[in-house]
């Protein structure tokens, strides 16, 4: 009969883990030490197990061991009698508990939070001055992991004692300790004042020395150097001066290191230098070399995800670098990576952002990307699970569609682009919505009169919804998209846009509390009343609700961009018939405001030549020679002091010549008539 106690099933996993937690509180030091080792072995590199033990309260138990063992050590140092074996066992407890804490913190923010909450951080920091080098190494290693998280406390370099502490860390013979010093800098150096303080304290020199050390030291040093140099030409100048032992040359050499991560970090360091102090890296060969190294690193398993981001920071907003990258076939190589399906999220995001940067300015880059038929990868990415990837695809599409040549060919106004983009307007993530709005803003410019396709996909309805968002960025971008959609659009489309938007909503957008929204809303109205003469009627609907709103905004706004758009609305309306022109006169010169300086007079005096030009175009239309009421309006303008003001402006060099000529005619016709 098979029936004995030994055949009982093993305890379930959960109770085994609880048992381990229980052993951490054992009265026997040996049992505790074994439990710590078991715990450390179980959680190392295993996120799921880290989370399990975290929930079971392992971190406070381990911290408690670290705390009591540290106290025992301190007592021994103060003269308590301990045997050599006791000291060794106690040190082992410290080392193992510090290591377990480090494992919890390594690459796991929930673990870092638990470690900080349990109070382990100051205990570890104190151990840095412990006499046993192994203890110091274990504590430093754990602190380094904590400092790799954004949750770690920020270190204040501006306090003198703190700077001395950093110096002492970097002076250490212990590699973990110097690594800790570098990690603290990478984590905590944010401001140019901190960068300068670190540079003045000779930290750069110490970090430069570390560049000749082990792989860990090189990498830690390169990361810290990039942090201290970033955006600070003054510190960069100090770093690159010959007295600094040819540090720049050493970093440049490290771009050829056999370790991929070192090569990447050296490239990032040089990019940081190049971006803030271009004169330091003028050699074309270095720039090309950086591009080639980063392309090569794209293939690396360890750093391949980060390489395209580094490439982006090298080429972003810099046409000369984009030309070099284009000549180095960057677009083809990035697209080849996209063809190697499946590309994981982080890498896909990086490649899309790099392609977006390549296409931000140069038409030839956009042409190349399109000729490689790579846009299908971009449209696929619009519906990826990762929000970052969706946003990156939108940015790429936005930059490719900056090409008027391709917009004019109607390349983007088709369902494969428009349908997923409209869907992204409903995205849960705001940053994805913002990116989608940017791409849509460009695509709807479409010169081929295919704008109805965007409407059929439900785009207008959602843009109108977003124009009512509480988030000002979403609101302004939604209105901008509607403005671009209204550019040279058919009357039928204008009707549709307005029926969705309504006069009341448009009026509230013109009067929005944010000037940037007002500007876009007025530009939208300006487009609305452009085109066939009948379009002007849109601002006269509902008792000229929109026309009055524009007038009110011109009376009260102060930002030139808002006033310019408002004046062009009036210019366009004033290009209509007599009723239209008279209505504009009423808005510009309200009957009850005779005593005050008119807005027209103010705008003609403006320092901004664009506003002066807009105002004069309105006057050109109001006094258009073939309009029957021109003479009466010239008289009114004369009485308001505008004509004499105009006479002084005839030689305004900032006004374009056509306006000056027309002005001359108006003024002359007025003169001749009196």
């Amino acid at each position, binding site marked *: 009969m098979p029936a004995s106690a030994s055949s009982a099933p093993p305890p379930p996993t959960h109770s085994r883990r609880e048992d381990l937690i229980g052993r951490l509180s054992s009265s026997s030091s040996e049992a505790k030490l074994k439990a710590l080792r078991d715990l450390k072995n179980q959680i190392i590199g295993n996120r799921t197990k880290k989370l399990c033990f975290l929930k079971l309260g392992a971190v406070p138990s381990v911290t408690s061991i670290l705390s009591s063992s540290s106290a025992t050590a301190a007592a021994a140092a103060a003269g308590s009698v301990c045997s050599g074996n006791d000291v060794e066992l106690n040190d082992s407890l410290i080392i193992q508990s510090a290591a377990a804490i480090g494992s919890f913190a390594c690459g796991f923010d929930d673990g870092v939070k638990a470690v900080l909450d349990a109070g382990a951080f100051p205990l570890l920091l104190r151990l840095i001055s412990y006499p046993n080098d192994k203890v110091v190494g274990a504590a430093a290693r754990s602190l380094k992991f904590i400092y790799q998280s954004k949750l770690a406390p920020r270190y204040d370099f501006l306090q003198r004692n703190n700077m001395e502490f950093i110096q002492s860390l970097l002076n250490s013979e212990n590699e973990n300790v110097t690594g800790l010093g570098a990690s603290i800098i990478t984590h905590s150096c944010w401001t140019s004042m901190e960068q300068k303080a670190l540079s003045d304290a000779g930290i750069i020199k110490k970090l430069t020395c570390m560049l000749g050390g082990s792989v860990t030291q090189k990498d830690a040093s390169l990361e810290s150097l990039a942090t201290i140099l970033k955006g600070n030409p003054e510190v960069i100048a100090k770093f690159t001066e010959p007295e600094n032992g040819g540090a720049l040359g050493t970093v440049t050499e490290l771009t050829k290191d056999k370790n991929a991560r070192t090569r990447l970090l050296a490239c990032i360091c040089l990019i940081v230098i190049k971006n803030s102090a271009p004169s330091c890296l003028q050699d074309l060969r270095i720039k090309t070399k950086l591009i080639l190294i980063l392309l090569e690193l794209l293939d690396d398993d360890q750093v391949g995800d980060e390489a395209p981001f580094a490439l982006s920071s090298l080429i972003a907003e810099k046409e000369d670098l984009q*030309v070099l990258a284009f000549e180095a076939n960057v677009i083809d190589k990035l697209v080849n990576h996209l063809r190697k399906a499946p590309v994981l999220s982080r890498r896909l995001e990086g490649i899309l952002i790099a392609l977006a940067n390549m296409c*931000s*300015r*140069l*038409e*030839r880059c956009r042409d190349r990307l399109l000729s490689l038929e790579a846009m299908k990868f971009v449209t696929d990415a619009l519906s990826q699970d990762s929000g970052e990837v969706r946003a990156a695809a939108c940015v790429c599409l*936005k*930059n490719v569609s*900056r*090409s*008027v*040549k391709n917009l*004019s*060919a109607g390349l983007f106004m088709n369902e494969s682009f428009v349908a997923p983009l409209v869907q992204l307007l409903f995205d849960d993530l705001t940053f994805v919505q913002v990116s989608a709005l940017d*791409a849509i*803003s*460009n695509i709807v*410019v479409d*010169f*081929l009169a295919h704008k109805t396709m965007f409407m059929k996909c439900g785009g207008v309805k959602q843009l109108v919804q977003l124009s009512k968002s509480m988030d000002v960025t979403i609101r302004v*971008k939604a209105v*901008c998209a509607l*403005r*671009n959609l209204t*550019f*040279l659009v058919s009357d039928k489309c204008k009707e549709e846009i307005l029926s969705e938007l309504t006069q009341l909503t448009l009026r509230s957008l013109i009067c929005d509390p944010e000037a940037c929204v007002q500007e*876009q809303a007025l*530009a939208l109205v*300006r*487009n609305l*009343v*452009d*085109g*066939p*003469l009948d379009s002007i009627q849109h601002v006269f609907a509902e008792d000229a609700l929109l026309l009055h709103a524009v007038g009110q905004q011109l009376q009260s706004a102060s930002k030139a*961009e808002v006033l*310019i758009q408002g004046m*062009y609305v009036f*210019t*366009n309306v*004033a*290009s*209509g*018939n007599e009723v239209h022109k008279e209505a504009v006169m009423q808005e510009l010169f309200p009957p009850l405001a005779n005593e005050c300086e008119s807005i027209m007079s103010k705008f003609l005096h403006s320092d901004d*030549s*664009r506003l002066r*030009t807009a105002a004069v*175009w309105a006057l*050109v*239309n*109001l006094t*258009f020679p*073939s*309009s029957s009421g021109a003479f009466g309006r010239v008289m009114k303008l004369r009485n308001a002091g505008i004509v004499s003001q105009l006479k002084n402006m005839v030689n305004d*060099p900032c006004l*374009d*010549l*056509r*306006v000056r*000529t027309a002005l001359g005619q108006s003024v002359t016709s007025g003169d001749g008539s009196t």
Partner: protein
Amino acid sequence: MPVRVVETSSALSQPSGGTSGNTLPSVCTLLSVGQAFSGTQNVSSQQKDEAWRVNVRIQGCDLDHGYLCGTMEALNVPMADTPVVTFWEGEIVDTKNYTFFTGKWGATSEDDIKHWTKFPSFSPLLSQVDVDGGKSLDLNNYPYIFMRWKEQYFVNVGTDCGLTIAGFYYVCFSSSDGSINGFYYDPNSSPFQKLELKSTNEGRLGFSFSSYELQ
């Protein structure tokens, strides 16, 4: 047959192309995005007199890069059933991005001078252009804007439509009256085909301006 233009390092299409649609300082508001022109192109040959009606619309403008682009619609083209629309890109002779010397599209400096001198407004500049292509001239306040317009593709018909866009236009825009004159240059077409355009206001008693802003 359409021939694609060889891109030079500065022939760029910029995001600000649209932004400059009346929101950035403009050489001339009538040359900003959305503006329309209409007129004729004389295509007479030795055999017969002929002129096509032409509409032009400015679609993009990037003054920093001396770039302008738009569409050109030829209305009564004998071989075509519908109006033929082409997309063109323009180089503004601003002496910074571009000089009077074309240096491409098969045009020699002699061809350039021969065409530019067809514009009376060019004569005061001739002597300096002879020296350096006009590099040292300051054309900022000159009442005329000189350009080259090169058609890049057919928008609404195939390349088998029997028409060619192999050549390019020497263009002169008058800032004072908004008119455009041009001469088509293509060694394989009738020489000096004249383009004459005037700013249109679509039935309005005045001028109207629209704008867009690329992100």
